[in-house]
């Protein structure tokens, strides 16, 4: 199976993997709505992609924590696009607290942006896709969600929650022909990782990550996949590390 995505919404489309996904979909001729909270960045991305002269790109300013706004914005964008085949939830933030810092405001922001906003958008999309008996939902989770890590407590919690949410959603709607894809990238070279003190291993570009994500989504069958796949081996090891050892690692 190879799905064609002709009309897509990318929430968190102003930078990083979201913007790159928008670019690649647009190059393929898809009409793409990019949703993000930074109006200027969003306009720049849309302007650049529209100038490239492929699929139309529509920018829409929205803070994913403004949950009430999501339904009407979703309806408007679906109307503008003339339907919907694909919704990508790529919005996400990561905070790495220093040792000895316990910051609820940051933990909360990560849960709201990475998880609750994702629930708001994917619920609406799942209802629509169930009704139309087709459609793909892609959620950008992370390998970080596989274990609770001392260096990024809120982030790993949020990604574990997002992974569980997407699995639950898949189990609800796969029977109606809806493709729910969980992608769990390892380390990708984006603004999010740029400030990390230690350069992580096996880092890939956002461009490469986006092309792997789209290839995974197009295959259908509601997969959950590490991006790239070799991170699956890392996850396997992570899963089997006893907590008594894991807590001593600088992860």
């Amino acid at each position, binding site marked *: 199976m190879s799905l064609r995505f002709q009309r897509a919404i990318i929430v968190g489309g102003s930078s990083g993997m979201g913007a790159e996904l928008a670019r690649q979909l647009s190059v393929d001729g898809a009409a793409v709505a990019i949703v993000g909270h930074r109006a200027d960045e969003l306009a720049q991305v849309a302007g650049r992609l529209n100038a490239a002269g492929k699929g139309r790109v529509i920018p829409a300013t929205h803070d994913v924590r403004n*949950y*009430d*706004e*999501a*339904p*009407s914005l*979703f*309806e408007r964008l*679906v109307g503008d696009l003339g339907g919907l085949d694909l919704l990508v939830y790529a919005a996400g933030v990561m905070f790495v607290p220093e040792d000895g810092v316990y910051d609820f405001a940051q933990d909360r922001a990560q849960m709201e942006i990475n998880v609750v906003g994702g629930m708001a958008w994917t*619920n*609406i999309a799942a*209802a*629509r896709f*169930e*009704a*139309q*008996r087709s459609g793909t939902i892609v959620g950008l989770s992370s390998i970080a969600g596989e274990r609770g890590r001392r260096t990024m407590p809120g982030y790993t919690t949020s990604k574990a929650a997002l992974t569980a949410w997407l699995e639950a959603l898949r189990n609800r709607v796969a029977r109606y022909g809806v493709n729910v894809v969980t992608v769990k990238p390892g380390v990708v070279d984006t603004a999010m990782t740029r400030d990390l003190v230690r350069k992580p291993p096996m880092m890939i570009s956002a461009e490469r990550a986006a092309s792997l994500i789209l290839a995974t989504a197009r295959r259908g069958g509601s997969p959950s996949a590490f991006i790239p796949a070799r991170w699956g081996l890392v996850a396997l090891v992570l899963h089997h590390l006893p907590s008594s050892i894991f807590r001593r690692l600088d992860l």
Partner: protein
Amino acid sequence: MSSPTLRSAAPWRVLDGFGGAQRAASLYARPRNAEELAGVFARARDEGVPVSFRGSGRSYGDASLNTGGLAVDLRGMDRVLSFDRATGIAELEPGATIEGLWRASLPHGFWPNVVPGTMAPTMGGCVAMNIHGKNCFKVGPFGDQVLELDLLAADGTLRTLSRERDPELFRAVIAGLGLLGAVTRVRVKTKAVESGRVRVSPIRTPTLGAMFDCFVERMPKSDYLVGWLDCFAGGKGLGRGIVHQANYLSAAEDPQGRALLDNARQDLPPSIMGVPRSLVWRILKLFTNDPGMKLTNTVKYHLPESFGGDGSFLQTHVEFAFLLDYVPDWRRAYGDDGFIQYQVFVPDSTARATLAELLERCRRRGVVSYLGVFKRHRPDEFLLSHGLDGWSLALDFPVHARDPRPLADLTRDLTELVLGAGGLFYAAKDSVLDSAQFARAYGDRLERFRAIKRTLDPGGMFQSDLARRLAVG
């Protein structure tokens, strides 16, 4: 803290049309009373959310669907407010069902004048769709039984409507597809009966012409008349079927019938030929395909049992009226793709030729209805009603989602045929017409309806997938 908005607080819900071939995701609310309903309207107006109404979900197509809008389920308001034992006049809330009505009336010797083939529909749905029954030729549609109703309009005002008070609006709200507001109370008349049973006479009619003749001959002496057609039969047998005539019984004709006015005596049997009713659809499913249905129709046509004795038998009102309730979930026999119902109404002057041609075209295209139901109608006073001096044929076609073309081509062809014959369609069941075809069928009446809607609901708050598809207003 201000109260939450509809968009933040209401859940999304995937609803389907009864045929299972159309679905919509919408926000969902289920108010418990008129105050809550008015509150929902106010919110929807402020937030610019289109509103549709939902009862038991028995409309076959998209009449109760509202993609991306708000579906207001009125079944939270389901009380029978009063029943007058002397006159048989009942007052009900919009979510009260036909079942609620007959259960309130029958013990006192009254049966609802008009019921559809299932007791599930709500009063709101019956009013909005102006449903009809097997006695339409004699007593007209549901709207003819309505004496008065309350309408909650988009601006939150409550109006009492009747043939005396604002008759123009009364005639627009009935058969108005729920596009002018919510009916919050309805006052309907029922018919006095002396027995809990009717006498049913089946008459086999070997051709379509014979079925017409049978109706013409029997109408003056029947209380109910409905024809079943074997749509697979062709050639000389085109339009063959069975007519069922039913008549009320007086106390003298049926001395034991009085005891059957008791609600408990009307309940449908828990099993059919030893199979629990709840499982029967699984057996039906085995036959719900072209060869299986061809066989089923042939067997049904030739089945001798119903013609034994003097050719008639007694059935309770429920047994005779609610054939569709015998098999719970029967629609599931059509599988996930579902089915559509396509009902055409043709004037008496052109009906014989048009319906014969229609059946022939189905056969020629190899897209044959699994069920054909034939009725006689009469004109009524309601603006968007399907009522006319003529005949209707209701057809059930299975949907094949992977190959929708043959059915779409057929229905387009048949719609042109019926429009050419001066016919009408029934929005409550429709899922195939487009706005131009609907406008051709309803002409000036549609324009008048739109004008009323613009006055009463200038913001166009009341919508549905059907209303948008047919550009009703």
